[in-house]
Each structure stands twice: as C-alpha cells, then as structure tokens.
C-alpha cells in the first residue's frame, strides 16, 4: 500500500500531468489540422477533377493503409531531408495530422456519397452552381451524418499519440514509462493512472459525440452513415 502512495506523490503526479498536457496539445493541434485538410482532401477526391482526384485518392489510400508508427518515423527521420527539422512534438503533430487527415478524407468522401443525388439535382435545378450546391447543400448534410465517425476517429487520434513515445515525445505514456522505469514498484500504479487518464479524455470525447448527435441528430441513423462510423472508428 505504501508503494502505491509513493507512486502518487505530488512530484510524480505533476510529471504525469505535464505529459498529459503534451498529449492534449499534440491531439488538439492535429485534430484541427486533420479536420481542415481532411475535408479539403475528401471533397477533392469526391469531385473527380481529372488526375488531381486520382492522385489525391491514391495518396490517401497509401497513408490509410500504413501503420501510424511508420508515418511517425517518416516525418521524424524523413522531413529533415526536405530541409525541415521538426522536434518530437512537431513531428508527432505533423504525422498525426497527415495520417488522420487521410482517415477524415475517407469519411468525408463516404459521407458525401451517402447523400441522395436528388439533393444535388434539386439544388442545381434551383439555379445554384455545382460548387455552391456542394458547399451549401450537400456538404453540411454530409458532415452532420459524419459527426460520430469523425469524433471516433479523433478518439483514436488521442490514443494513438502514445505511439509517438518511440521518437521520445514527452507525452503521458512516455512520462509514465520514465517513472516506472526508475522504480518498478510503481508499475501497476502507473498503468492504473494511464488507463484512467486516457479513459477520461477519450470517454468524455465520445459522450460529447453522443451529445452532438442528439443535438444536431436526425439524418439516417442506420444504413450508410452507421457503416461509415464502423469503417473509421479505429486507426
């Protein structure tokens, strides 16, 4: 019992919280970036611009089908060849953003496809241009249907930041490892702390998603949108 209390000394808790802060920082930055780029790339892939859409689609497929750890290595070890030397925090943000943007893009594309074509035709019949119809009519509906899928993607993102310990990102996982690496009696308390802290962040995100769903809700509950959720719910 004493060892457990020692593990949760203020010094250790503070160190863990510092790690949690990095986890949250990296998560938030990459969520924002990947949402923006994901929507742009998803739309680009959907609209069938000659060559561009095919190339974008292919690159998205490549990224989606690689393990995230590899993408982290590529950014950390590869980007310097292009003249940019990121520190572990930036490297993680970029790697997560690239990987998750590809995931979000796929969700967005599937989301747009799931909107009945009648919507687009109706909007065009009312005199809107193709892009106007896409932007004002189709995309908002698609995004509403995609919220659960996108949020669960972001939950995966938060969890996946732990993989960046491999390039010594000083995140929650890394800090816990440093603590139990120095005193093995703290192993179980640290795992407990890890589980609780990640769970709190991720579960509150998923509650937020349920709230959003109810709030904006509607749409087709089952069918296409649900399928999309399951496709993308995990990284």
């Amino acid at each position, binding site marked *: 019992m004493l060892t457990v209390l020692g593990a949760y000394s203020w010094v250790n808790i503070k160190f863990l919280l510092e790690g949690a802060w990095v986890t949250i920082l990296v998560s938030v930055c990459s969520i924002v970036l990947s949402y923006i780029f994901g929507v742009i790339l998803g739309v680009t892939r959907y609209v069938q611009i000659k060559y561009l859409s095919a190339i974008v689609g292919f690159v998205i497929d490549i990224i989606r089908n690689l393990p995230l750890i590899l993408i982290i290595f590529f950014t950390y070890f590869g980007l*310097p060849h292009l003249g940019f030397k990121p520190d572990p925090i930036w490297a993680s943000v970029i790697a997560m953003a690239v990987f998750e943007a590809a995931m979000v893009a796929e969700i967005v594309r599937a989301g747009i496809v799931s909107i009945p074509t009648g919507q687009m035709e109706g909007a065009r019949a009312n005199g809107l241009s193709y892009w106007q119809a896409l932007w004002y009519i189709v995309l908002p509906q698609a995004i509403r249907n995609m919220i659960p899928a996108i949020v669960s993607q972001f939950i995966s993102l938060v969890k996946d930041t732990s993989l960046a310990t491999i390039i010594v990102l000083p995140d929650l996982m890394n800090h816990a490892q440093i603590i139990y690496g120095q005193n093995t009696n703290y192993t179980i308390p640290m795992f407990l702390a890890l589980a609780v802290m990640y769970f709190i962040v991720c579960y509150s995100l998923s509650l937020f998603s349920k709230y959003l769903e109810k709030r904006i809700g509607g749409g087709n509950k089952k069918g296409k949108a649900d399928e999309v959720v399951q496709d993308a719910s995990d990284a």
Partner: protein
Amino acid sequence: MRKILSRVGLVVALLIMVVSLGACSSTSGSKRDVLKDDKQSNTITWGVKADTKLFGLMDVKDNQIKGFEVDLAKAMTKEILGKKGKARFIQVTSQTRMPLLANGNIDAIMATMTITPQRAEQVDFSRSYFDAGQAILVKDGSPIKNVRSLNRKGAVVLGVVGSNSVQNIKKFAPKARVLQLSDYSQALTALKSGQGDALTTDNGILYGMSIENPGYSVVGGTFTKEPYGIATAKGQRPFHNAINHALTKVENSGEYNKLIYKWFHNVKGFDMKGAER
C-alpha cells in the same frame, strides 16, 4: 482496364518519387558548417540519453536530464563556445540517435555510444571519453553467473535496439535468444517482469540500474571493451577537431575527474582509479 493502367502508372510514379527522395537523402546534411552555425547561435545541440542512470536520466522533479554525459557536454560546450555558450539537450534512444545526427537535428551524439568500425563509416568519432565494457545484470540468486552460462538453448537475453551490445552478445552467447527493447527503462522493466534471464549492456549503465534496483546485480565482470565516443556528422572536420580539443582541455583541467567522482564515487564495484584521466 484503363483504370487499372492508370493505377499502375501512379504506383510507378510514386515509386520513382520515393526512390529519388532516398537518393537525395544520402547527399544532404554535409553542406552546412556545424561549428560556424553553433558559434553564431552560441548553442551546441547534444543528443543525450534520458533513460540511463549516471549518464543521462530524466529527473522527474524538474524535468531536466542529469548525468555524467550531460555534465561533460556542458563543460565541453563552455570550452568550445566560451563561458556563455549554451548547451541544448535532445533526448535520443539508441534507435533514433544516428538518423537524428544524419538529419542535423542534433550536432553531436554523446549517448553511451561505443566506437565501432561499422559506425565509423557513417559518422566521425572523437577520442574515447569513457571506457566501458559490456556486462550482464541478473536477479540475485539467478543461476547465471557470467556470460558463458547464458550460452544455452532457452536462455533469453534482453538488450536495446541499435546498441552495440546486442551485436556482441550474439558472439559470446550464440545459443541464447536476444530480445531488443526500445530503450533501457523498457529493457529493465522487461527484466523485472521476467521476460528475460539477463539484461546486457555496458557496465556503467548496468551499475546505474543496480543502484536503483536492490536485488539485481552486475555479475561476471566485463567481457568486451566499449570505448564511448562523441559522434559528429561526416564532413564536419572543424567541429570534430573542436570537440577533441575541448575533451583534452576538460581532462587536463581536472574537471573530468571531478565529474567522474561526482557521478561514480558511490557506485559499488566501479573502478574509480581506472576511469580517472
């Protein structure tokens, strides 16, 4: 059919891109002059370990890396850049240090890195700044008394990815199975979890572990010589020379011995006289 062809075309295009990226990677990195850049910014960026007691260990209390190598790097920075020179530390692992140096994220590696001919083809090494030797750490009461008793089927040795010791152990105990973890704290945790019979790396690092973890000891003495060197990127002669020069100065001024005393004087079984310069 057309679709398939365009897909294939894309794959080929991408492969060409990848290969050309790989090709240009080997040429970059050597263009800048590290010493000049560092003098301008008044900062040297060192790659150090953060999971290795005595050499470089993250202090949970204030988030600083502390250890013999960190102190030595600070002293050498002052010799190279003058009293006001700043030393910046970036955490590396055995796995990340070489790519980081090649990419220029760090100027020099001082991270318990043994000078080996194979590595010397990729980086320049300074003179040795610490002479370690490989040893093994086992749980007290373990039947394993030295490296020879590890040479049997079923024995499991733990090491760290990218360290010289995992290469050596294959020569000294070829029958043992080697598991490579990503850093020392992982490897030590694995040893304590019973994932292996012994942990092998350099004696200095193992001493640090045995201090923190009663019930585990270094046994059998050293079976290799592991001179640690400071690695710099190829083609950085001025910086390389400055490092060797600074090392000599730190040794001659007696500061080196002070640091050895500071970090190793209460380590059981450590040969202080042999380490002093």
